[in-house]
């Protein structure tokens, strides 16, 4: 007789598992692929969904702008999370991977378009730093970037 569900401490590890109906493996020893639920699914918990404002949001300039922005995040005991970035463009849309943009202008005064880039710089246990770069002659700046941080489990 095997168990289809197991919850409790086993060998120093908290296990919380429900196996798939078509599997005959004991829940206590089941891999995540054998489960409809497995405690490791909890351990990859997303722990921050937030917004990082661009330091030069709203600026219209033909100059190169290149700045970093740092925000505080809750200390969830994680220093190397998984992350996903959703840039937010000049008109407030979350655009992944980035907005398409076509703008008129010339090589002297610049173009009314969005050619910026956003990079992840660093994530510590308590802070997150992004780098926003707007190239010269592309006039528009992003508003910022939505970020999802997730534990690795």
């Amino acid at each position, binding site marked *: 007789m095997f168990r289809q569900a197991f919850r409790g401490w086993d060998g120093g590890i908290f296990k919380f598992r429900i196996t798939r109906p078509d599997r005959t493996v004991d829940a206590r020893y089941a891999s995540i692929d054998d489960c409809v639920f497995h405690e490791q699914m909890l351990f990859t918990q997303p722990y921050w969904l937030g917004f990082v404002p661009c330091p030069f949001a709203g600026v219209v300039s033909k100059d190169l702008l290149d700045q970093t922005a740092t925000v505080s995040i809750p200390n969830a005991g994680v220093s190397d999370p998984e992350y996903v970035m959703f840039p937010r463009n000049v008109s407030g849309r979350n655009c992944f991977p980035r907005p398409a943009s076509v703008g008129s202008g010339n090589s002297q005064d610049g*173009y009314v378009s969005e050619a910026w880039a956003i990079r992840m710089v660093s994530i510590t246990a308590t802070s997150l730093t992004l780098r926003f770069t707007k190239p010269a002659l592309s006039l528009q700046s992003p508003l910022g970037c939505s970020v999802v941080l997730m534990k690795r489990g």
Partner: protein
Amino acid sequence: MATLEARISNAGIEIAKPGFDVRTASLANMAFSPNLVAMRVALEGTITAVPHSEGAPYTAYYKATKVFPTPFPDPPYALVAGIGSDGTSYQAPFVINTAGGGFLEVTPHFELNTYADRIDLYVMQWSAGGVLLPTTWKYWIFQNTLY
């Protein structure tokens, strides 16, 4: 008092890291905390990008929209992947920049826009750098919001 390393209470599911007590552990010493966010897949399926009549910057793109049955408070966390005819999954966001003729064009292979009530997906309709993009895309909408 014995160490209580996990419990299910009216606060939710609480699991401390081994050796810590859920009643006293700091957030950093919790394996799972109901004080942090959680996500589930709220919607998933496929959408097909088709021709549309919108102007720049989307004239070179096909478009697909998925309207949510119930709007979220804010734009949800959404992912997409193009499904090739051979079953492969396509996510590479290559970008083509061109300047001249009075215009600067910045054209990613695809653009996913998330709103509280829908997603709009634009897919480049011509062979992008030698890659012919699929028009069938899988989407995942998670039950939590950006911001």
